[in-house]
C-alpha cells in the first residue's frame, strides 16, 4: 500500500448503519441515545488459537459478520489503525533469527548502535514471552530515541477505503494513537520493572526519549487532524499501580493535555484506554482534557465502583465500556449483568459508549452480548430526543 493524500467522507446511512449513531453519540447529537460496542476480539482469537469451534450460529463467520449477527456496533481500531503508517529511517535494518524451540532473536541495527530482543512463543495462545526486551540498557534506550527522532508518519488512503467498504457500517472511523511516555516505556520497550528502574537510574536519558516520542507524535497529530478520522483513542493501558499518581502528574498528564488541545482544535473526539486499576488517578481524570475514558473496570474486577467512576468523570466526560468482563462468564448470573448494565445507563447516558471492560474472555457466553444489545435497543427506543438530520 502507498502513502497518499487524504480524501473521503464517512459512509452515508444505511438501515443498520452504526457509524452515524456512533458519531452522533460522540458529538452529543444523538438525542439522548447511546451505543453498544462490545469487544470480542480476545474471545474470537483465543478460540481460533485453541482450534475450538465457535458456538452456533457463529461458526464460520468473520468478526464483522458476528457483530452484525449480534446487532451491535464495533469500535473499529483494528481496521483503521493502518491508515497511519510509521516508517523508520531507511538506515534502520531489522533481522530475525530463529533460535529454535520457538525462540526468535530480533536485531535492530542503526547508525548509532543496535538493539536486540529475544521472544519465545507460548503454547497456550498467540502471546509471546519477552526473554530480552529491545531496551534493557541505557545505550539501547539512546538507540530507541534516535529511531523516534528519525521516523515519520504517512497516510494510507487504501486502508481507509478498504475499511469503509468492508466495515464502514459497523462504526465511525476510529484509531488508537500509540502510547506516550511512561506507558510506552513500560509496555512496548522495557517491561514495567526495567522501565521503573530506568526512570530512577537514568532519568535524563529517559526524558530525552520521552521528548523525542512526543515530537514524533506531533507529526502524527498533524496528519490525524487533516484526516476524516474523528474518534481518537490513546491506547495507553493505564494502570495506576505502576503509573503512580506522582508519575501520572509528572509525565502522563502534561503530554495528554497537550495532545488533547491540538486534537480538539481540529474537532476530534479524544479518549484514552485505562484498563487497569485507576482509583488513585481517577480524581485527575477531568484535568486530562480528554472527552472520555475507555475500559475503566468497576468492581468486582477493577478497583472502583460505578459511583466512584461517575464522581471522577463528572457530567461532561464520557464513559466508554463499563461492564466488567467477568459478568459475561457463567460464574455471575444474567441478573447481575442486567442490573449492572441498567445502572451504567442510569449513571452515564447519554455520555456513554457502552462496552465491556475490557473484553469478553474466551470463557464468556457470547449470547449475553445479545442480552445487552436488547437492553440498549429498548433504552434507545424510549429516547424522545430529536436526531438532527
Amino acid at each position, binding site marked *: 500500500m502507498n502513502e497518499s493524500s487524504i480524501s473521503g467522507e464517512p459512509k452515508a446511512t444505511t438501515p443498520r448503519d452504526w457509524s452515524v449513531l456512533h458519531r452522533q453519540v460522540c458529538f452529543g447529537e444523538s438525542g439522548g441515545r447511546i451505543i453498544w460496542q462490545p469487544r470480542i476480539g480476545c474471545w474470537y482469537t*483465543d478460540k481460533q488459537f485453541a482450534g475450538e469451534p465457535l458456538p452456533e450460529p457463529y461458526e464460520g463467520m468473520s468478526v464483522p459478520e458476528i457483530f452484525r449477527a449480534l446487532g451491535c456496533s464495533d469500535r473499529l481500531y483494528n481496521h483503521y489503525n493502518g491508515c497511519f503508517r510509521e516508517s523508520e529511517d531507511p538506515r534502520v535494518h531489522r533481522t530475525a533469527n530463529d533460535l529454535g524451540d520457538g525462540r526468535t532473536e530480533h536485531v535492530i541495527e542503526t547508525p548509532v548502535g543496535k538493539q536486540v530482543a529475544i521472544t519465545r512463543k*507460548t*503454547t*497456550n*495462545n498467540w*502471546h509471546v*514471552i519477552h526473554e530480552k526486551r529491545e531496551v534493557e540498557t541505557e545505550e539501547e534506550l539512546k538507540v530507541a530515541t534516535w529511531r523516534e527522532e528519525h521516523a515519520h508518519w504517512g497516510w494510507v488512503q487504501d486502508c481507509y477505503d478498504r475499511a469503509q467498504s468492508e466495515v464502514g457500517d459497523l462504526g465511525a472511523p476510529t484509531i488508537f494513537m500509540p502510547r506516550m511516555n511512561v506507558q510506552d516505556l513500560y509496555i512496548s520497550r522495557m517491561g*514495567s*520493572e526495567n522501565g*521503573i*528502574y530506568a*526512570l*530512577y537510574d537514568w532519568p535524563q536519558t529517559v526524558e530525552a526519549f520521552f521528548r523525542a516520542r512526543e515530537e514524533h507524535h506531533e507529526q502524527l497529530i498533524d496528519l490525524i487532524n487533516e484526516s476524516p478520522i474523528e474518534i481518537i483513542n490513546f491506547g495507553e493501558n493505564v494502570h*495506576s*499501580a*505502576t503509573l*503512580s*499518581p*506522582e*508519575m501520572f502528574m509528572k509525565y502522563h498528564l502534561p503530554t495528554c493535555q497537550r495532545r488533547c488541545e491540538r486534537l480538539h482544535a481540529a474537532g476530534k473526539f479524544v479518549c484514552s484506554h485505562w484498563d487497569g486499576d485507576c482509583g*488513585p488517578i481517577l480524581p485527575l481524570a477531568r484535568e486530562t482534557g480528554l472527552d472520555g475514558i475507555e475500559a475503566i473496570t468497576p468492581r468486582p*474486577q477493577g478497583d472502583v465502583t460505578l459511583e466512584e467512576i461517575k464522581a471522577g468523570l463528572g457530567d461532561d466526560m464520557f464513559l466508554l465500556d463499563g461492564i466488567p*468482563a*467477568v459478568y459475561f*462468564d457463567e*460464574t455471575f448470573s444474567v441478573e447481575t449483568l442486567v442490573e449492572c448494565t441498567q445502572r451504567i445507563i442510569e449513571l452515564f447516558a447519554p455520555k456513554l459508549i457502552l462496552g465491556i471492560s475490557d473484553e469478553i*474472555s*474466551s*470463557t464468556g457466553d457470547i449470547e449475553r452480548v445479545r442480552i445487552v444489545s436488547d437492553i440498549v435497543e429498548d433504552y434507545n427506543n424510549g429516547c424522545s430526543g430529536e436526531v438532527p438530520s
Partner: protein
Amino acid sequence: MTDLSTLYDAILSGDHKTARSLAQTALDENTDPKSIVDKYMIPAMDEAGRRFEANVFYVPELLIAARAMKAAMELIRPKLLENHVEPAGRVVVGTVQGDLHDIGKNLVASMLEGGGFEVIDLGVDVSPEQYVAAATEHGANLIALSALLTTTMPGMRAVVDLVKQSPAAGDLKVMIGGAPITQTYADEIGADGFSDNASGAVNEARRLVGVTAA
C-alpha cells in the same frame, strides 16, 4: 561503628547503591550479619509493605525498595550461610500455566526475599508438574501461585490437587494470589493461604511456614 539506621533509610528510599555500600561497611566492621538483616533490613521492607498497603507507596516505590534490599542481601547472604543461618523458608514462586502476567508475581518474590525467604522463581506459564518438581528438588515448604486471568485461575486448583497427591503433602503448603483471586476462591480450591497484596504475602508465608516477623 556505622549508624545502621541509614541502611534502613537507604532501603526504604530505594537507594540500592548506598544500601549495598552500607551493608559492606557493616560487614567490614564485623557486625553480626543476622542482626543487620533482622534489625534494619527486614524492618525497612516491612515498612515499605505497610506504606504500599496504605497507598503511600505504589509499585515503583516498592520495587526500588526491594531492589535495594536485594543489593544489600547479595553481600550478606554468603555470610549468613557461613554462620549456618537458615532462611525463613523456601518458596517456589511462579505464574500459572497460560498466564504471562508477572509484575505482581515478581513483586511478591522480591518481598518474600526481603522477608528472609529463599525464593525459587519459575517465571511465567508454569505447569502444575513444574511447581511440584521444583518444590521437591529444592526442599521447599511453600509454593506461591499467581494468576491474573479468570481463564487461568483454574490452573491453581490443579496445583493444589497435585501437591495433595505428592509425597510432600501436608508439609508443602500452597499460597495463591493475583487480581481476580479472593479468599473465597482460595477456600474453594483448598489452598492454604491467600493475600491480595505483596506485603500481605510475606505475612501469610510466615504464618504458613510457622515463623514470626522479625
